[in-house]
């Protein structure tokens, strides 16, 4: 663990006293490696370590903390300041239906997460409608319909012949007619560099003005997370992130990078394949996980 590594670096520091610049640089090398091994983006890690250095150089070794623990404490605090607030909510509209759009790269977990969100919202007293706007992936509509049946949550779909913009607009109209309070739009996975597909998201957004645009990010994403999330944010505009597959052993550094670069809040964590596997975001737990 990082604390053990830093303790080794600092055990030459005999008693109490100020940390010297050299002590701090040795420790920061370990911090930087830990962050990179946790998939934190190269530049984000560099900027982060620079901020930690600023705080650590000249600081006193506190009370009973070892110098290593002192640096870890500063690192932990800096991580939390980037990772943001826990428990951010979905902003529900005073005039239903609230429209929540799920976007992201292929295979990140959007369809499964849409179902999870629908279940979560229903448990909270909402009446959700799922909208199947992925007309490209084979059996994507069937996947959402099957999930809807399992949960007894309605799914609006028009098969694969229609334009996703039309499907979404019709889905929201259906929600309004049927008294659904939230419409959850499942969109097709797409590359941030696929102009046509990104334009489709922009057209959907302009047509129906969603209250939430949530990027689903796979927890095991590496350095590319910043590029992809940055492009989605710039082109479509995001209101939140959902980190999926957090039940694995990926360190999740992509979350730190995306937070640092886009400032978009993490709203939920996907923690399993079943539809009840959705948890609120705990930044302190993610910080410990990233540090390893």
């Amino acid at each position, binding site marked *: 663990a990082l604390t053990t590594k830093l303790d080794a670096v600092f055990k030459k520091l005999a008693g109490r006293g100020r940390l010297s610049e050299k002590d701090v640089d040795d420790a920061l090398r370990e911090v930087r490696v830990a962050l990179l091994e946790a998939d934190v983006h190269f530049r984000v890690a560099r900027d982060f370590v620079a901020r930690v250095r600023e705080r650590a150089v000249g600081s006193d070794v506190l009370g009973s903390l070892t110098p290593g623990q002192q640096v870890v404490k500063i690192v932990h605090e800096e991580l939390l300041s980037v990772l943001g607030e826990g428990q951010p909510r979905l902003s529900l509209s005073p005039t239903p239906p609230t429209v929540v759009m799920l976007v992201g790269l*292929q295979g990140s977990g959007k369809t499964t997460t849409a179902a999870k969100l629908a279940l979560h919202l229903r448990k909270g007293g909402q009446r959700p409608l799922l909208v199947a706007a992925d007309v490209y992936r084979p059996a994507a509509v069937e996947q959402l319909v099957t999930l809807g049946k399992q949960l007894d949550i309605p799914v609006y779909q028009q098969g694969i012949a229609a334009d996703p913009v039309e499907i979404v607009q019709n889905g929201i109209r259906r929600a309004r007619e049927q008294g659904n309070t939230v419409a959850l739009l499942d969109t097709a996975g797409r590359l941030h560099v696929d102009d046509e597909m990104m334009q489709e998201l922009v057209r959907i957004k302009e047509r129906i003005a969603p209250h939430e645009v949530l990027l689903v990010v796979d927890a095991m994403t*590496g350095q590319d997370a910043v590029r992809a999330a940055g492009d989605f944010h710039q082109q479509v505009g995001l209101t939140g992130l959902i980190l999926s597959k957090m039940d694995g052993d990926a360190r999740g550094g992509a979350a730190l990078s995306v937070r640092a670069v886009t400032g978009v809040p993490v709203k939920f964590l996907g923690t399993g394949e079943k539809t009840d596997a959705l948890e609120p975001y705990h930044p302190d737990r993610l910080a410990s996980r990233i540090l390893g």
Partner: protein
Amino acid sequence: QLFQRGQLDQALWDALEEALISADVGVATTERLLEAVKARVRQVDHPSPEDAHLALKEEMVRTLETPPAPPPELSACPRVVLVVGVNGVGKTTTIGKLARHFRSQGQRVLLAAADTFRAAATEQLQLWGERVGAEVVAHQPGADPGAVAFDALQAARSRDVDVVIVDTAGRLHTKVNLMEELKKVRRVLQRLDPQAPHEVLLVLDATTGQNGLLQARAFTEAVEVTGVILTKLDGTAKGGIALAICADLGLPLVFVGTGETPEDLAPFDPATYVDALLP
């Protein structure tokens, strides 16, 4: 613009380190590669940045070529290919592409829908089968994946099929019960044919970071992976963890996925891959 510097200074090594780390090559493998390059350029009289650049590319190609891809088991009838990997990496889509690839060589292909868990997994594979001309053996949702694999191999023998490709459910390698289930699928195949599965292909998403190495280790430990397929290289991710996988585990890369249509599969070529990673 990495190599417009006039000399081999620390700035150049830093730039190379950033290029590799940013491609998900990882800290340890990056250090190993750069050490090897430094050792090589030390033997050159007036090494230029171009020398370093070229030496690095050569080191990377050498790393990727070191585990030779085993020749396909062409005498097996049918040849059995088991496809495994974590959730959402592109297994089912890749199987569709592999089936098209074998079909284009005139082979009869049968697909086993052994993902009996995920919603519409069977339907997804069936659509791919229709698209590329491969029959699909499937059971009802919740059925035992081993039973599907068994029936598929039986059917393949009786129908004179050349290749059976077994699709499995995505599973995180940390889930012990799911890894046990996968081992059981493999044992079922072995019971029918001691040589089966002739290939165990791990599908890895190019956007995956350091976790890819843990995935490769765990799946190899469980079901003896014979090769890796790197998908989604049509994005901006470089899949550099493949270098760590080759270096540490000696697993060959066999194919790359470059899109969502049946044709978007190419044999892995180290030189092409390295040129894309380090232009």
